[in-house]
């Protein structure tokens, strides 16, 4: 028995050496033969980081892979077949940089990113966060507008932290309302999570109390208007001494606001408290894990100390550059890790491949976000989902043509969104969003009648049918994968392609099903 126990952990590695099954031609669809170029100081920090982990600089992802990846990352959508063809034909050496600029300034950028920030800000109408519908939409519009204008994030979050007034007329106050627990302790937890990227539950009690006292004078009251609520602050009557999370003491004078003192601490470019939290969280939104290897909002203490060197640099640049969120996203998608191959390096063992994935030397695969997948299927089928809600009142009806990523209210959901892990927005942690694949999800994709009806429309909507065989296949591959089929794939398809007219039609349906159910489609890779 003993030798089996010893052998077992080794067995999978012996049976499935990473990357052994694929030939070089298959790999070339997804990666270039050259290593990813190192262009910026950030890239060089990563190269040093990888060297310290005994990892080589990874290969660069193929053009088609970068095209699809950056569309999903910045716009939360796939490129259209026309966009894909134009990009793949383009021979300009800076075509990727040009594409990034276009995407950063298109309306899909604030639409997609308001979804991620709304997750972190817990925007939902009901239980356990009772914002109520009118306040949800006011708050979401504020966020969407701010991201559209690329308002510096420190300015946005200072507004949120210091808000007072009505949940309908001063939407920033909803930041302090979006809490399941509105005691000073509960508020301090939420704010530490959002602004510091820390879970204060793990702090010593004394430190938790110190932070709590910054929120002890916040009050809420109802008005005669239905579901209106006012957030206000009791003014200080005497000087009060408080302790900041870094241990320094500050005095708040009579008439002052304790929250402002905390804002000065969090947004000071020299301290990089908010900068470290934002950089780490945003990185995890792009890569599925934070720069520190954690979930993206689990720094042990406020500030950049726990981040590896590349993270420290990114945080400093972000703070000194005026908390420019678009610029942060630009830096991330232009970085070497973002442009790296999604394939495990050849002839390495599992341990090595795992280490490469954890340190961003191999682009980590992540199943598409629930809302993004819903949007993608809606676009492919020409039949987007419609959302509405009657509880709590007033009723909300979302126009069908509005993207699902713009669904403001976390309480409005569907079976599909729930199944694919849309976050409940209960606590605002990054981990609430669940991108793990499950048997139920695969079952749905295999077999759902709702999906069958939608998929049946794809060949018609995208005018696949009227074309000759190879062009039909190219069209479908561009639609689903943003690339052309390889000669081997064309051959496989040719062999399966039936002779009769009706069979051809059924085959196109089969193929749409196959492409939709494939790894290449379902993952950001």
């Amino acid at each position, binding site marked *: 028995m003993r030798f089996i126990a010893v052998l077992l952990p080794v067995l999978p590695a012996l049976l*499935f*050496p*990473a*990357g*052994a*099954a*694929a030939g070089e031609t*298959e*790999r070339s*669809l*997804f990666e270039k033969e050259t290593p990813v170029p190192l262009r910026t100081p950030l890239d060089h920090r990563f190269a040093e980081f990888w060297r310290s982990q005994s990892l080589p600089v990874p290969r660069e992802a193929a053009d088609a892979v970068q095209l699809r990846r950056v569309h999903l990352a910045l716009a939360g959508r796939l490129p259209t077949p026309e966009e894909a063809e134009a990009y793949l034909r383009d021979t300009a050496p800076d075509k990727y940089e040009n594409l990034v600029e276009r995407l950063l300034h298109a309306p899909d950028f604030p639409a997609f990113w308001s979804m991620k920030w709304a997750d972190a800000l817990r925007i939902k109408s009901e*239980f*356990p966060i009772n914002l109520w519908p009118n306040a949800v939409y006011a708050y979401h519009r504020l966020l969407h507008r701010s991201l559209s204008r690329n308002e510096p994030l420190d300015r946005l979050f200072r507004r949120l932290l210091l808000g007072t007034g009505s949940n309908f007329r001063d939407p920033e106050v909803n930041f302090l309302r979006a809490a*399941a*627990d509105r005691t000073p302790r*509960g508020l301090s*937890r939420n704010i530490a999570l959002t602004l510091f990227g820390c879970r204060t539950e793990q702090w010593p*009690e004394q430190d938790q109390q110190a932070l709590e006292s910054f929120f002890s004078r916040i009050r809420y009251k109802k008005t005669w208007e239905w579901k209106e609520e006012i957030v206000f602050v009791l003014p200080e009557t005497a000087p009060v001494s408080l302790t900041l999370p870094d241990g320094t003491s500050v005095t708040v004078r009579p008439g002052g606001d304790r929250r402002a003192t905390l804002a000065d601490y969090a947004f000071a470019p020299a301290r990089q408290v908010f900068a470290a939290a934002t950089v780490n969280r945003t990185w995890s939104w792009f890569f599925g894990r934070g720069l520190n290897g954690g979930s993206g909002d689990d720094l042990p203490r406020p500030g950049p100390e726990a981040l590896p060197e590349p993270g420290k640099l990114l945080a400093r640049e972000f703070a000194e550059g005026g908390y420019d969120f678009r610029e942060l996203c630009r830096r991330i998608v232009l970085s070497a890790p973002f442009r790296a191959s*999604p*394939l*495990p390096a050849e002839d390495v063992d599992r341990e090595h*491949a795992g280490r490469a*994935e954890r340190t961003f030397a191999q682009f980590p*695969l992540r199943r598409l976000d629930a809302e993004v997948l819903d949007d993608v299927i809606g676009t492919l089928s020409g039949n987007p989902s419609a959302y509405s809600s009657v*509880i709590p009142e007033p009723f909300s009806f979302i126009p069908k043509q509005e993207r699902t990523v713009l669904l403001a209210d976390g309480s409005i959901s569907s*079976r599909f969104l*729930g199944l694919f892990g849309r976050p*409940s927005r*209960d*606590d605002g942690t990054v*981990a609430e969003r*669940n991108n*793990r*694949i*499950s*048997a*139920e*999800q*695969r*079952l749905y994709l*295999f*077999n*759902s009648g*709702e999906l*069958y*009806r939608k998929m049946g429309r794809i060949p018609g909507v995208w005018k696949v049918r009227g074309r000759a065989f190879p062009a039909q296949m190219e069209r479908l591959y561009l639609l689903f994968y943003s690339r052309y089929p390889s000669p081997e794939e064309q051959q*496989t*398809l040719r062999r399966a392609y039936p002779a009769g007219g009706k069979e051809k039609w*059924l085959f196109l349906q*089969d*193929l749409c099903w*196959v*492409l939709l*159910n*494939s*790894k*290449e489609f*379902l*993952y950001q*890779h």
Partner: protein
Amino acid sequence: MNRRDFLKTCAAFTTLGAVAHFAGRPLSAWAGGKIAPPPRPRAKSVIEVWVWGGPSQLETFDPKPGAPRDYNGGFKAIPTNVPGIEISEFFPLLAQHADKYSLIRTMTHPHPGHETATYLMQTGRNPGGGQVFPAIGAVIAMFKAENYRGDLPPYVILTVPKGRFSEVGFLNERYSPLVTGGNPAAEKFIVDGIVPPGGLSPEALRKRFDLLERLDTFGRAAAGVEELKHFDDAGIGARRIVEGDAAKVFDLALEPRTMRERYGMTTLGQSFLTARRLVEAGVPYITINAQGWDTHKRHFETMKTKAAEMDKATAALISDLHERGLLDSTIIWWTGEFGRTPKVDWDAPWNGGRNHYPHCFSCLVAGGGFAGGKVVGESDEYAAKVVSRPVSPQDMLGSIYELCGIDPDGKLPNPIGLDVPVLPPESAAGRLRELYRS
């Protein structure tokens, strides 16, 4: 964690100076003095009849024929097959089986809102505190999953979700319920994702799976990536359901016509029948979400139709499971999130309505180690106040857990590393020991 491990952990915490974490929590549940669990946990499956909206205690299991008409609406109680137990005249069929179930007439909690009350009744916890706890269905699905060999998910809801309520809480997504959708009383009960929508022969399906494999260029190139292994694993179970027999459990045409009619040819009745088929398939937890019991207006008119189909379906389920020898290993619990106000509101716009009332309401339990023919608790002459033996939601949940062989005071394993017991530790005293069969 056994007791020795716990003491060790305690010692470790003490040295770390974190003993405050446990302060204020009675240790008795862990360190001796624990109430004896049932002698032999025998429940393999649980059927929860969730009467959404709040069923009236007076028109179900706690009738008050002696109270004024403003309370009982002029409706009577009828005897059952157990001397001394009477239930509402709305449930004549169920009255013939009182020896197989027991009634709790003193369920009580303080929350008159649907969401909060549902959360408490389902999780045993008050909302707030930043964590969303899993509902009993997900918890039992998780504990029972180890010995469950079926292809269907371990938790199935017929036919619509409870709504606005995350059943799975912080547990792994795999314990979230499969919500069937569809209508079991229709010609064909289409469970989206499970029962193929039609038009595809097994041969055509196989062709699709073949092509999927042959065209998996990316999968071959990226072989070795851990995430893709999960993807393949998830596909194996799903494909088994698509191509195998699992969908047959939803094919009610396989039941004799007389059996279907015994449950009633309504969505509710056929949901009950499907629940019995799911129990036979070994599914550990099944919820039937009954709709339309939030009777603020015209309560008695609604009761006439709602209670009739409920009576028929519940009586059929209990007797059918009993005849098949499955009642002994299957718990049925029938409850709403609360009851309804004892005093009837006759004025417009209510026109004889009852509102939300959590302070004293009724619940039925049967099978799986619960004795039949008993009544727990006594309410006052209006079914408004608990007179003796209050039963809390935690008492109810804790009893079901114990009969399923789950220690309610033990650790609730969870992926976020929270150190919490299955139920709040202070809840141990009130479990329904008087109903446990020896």
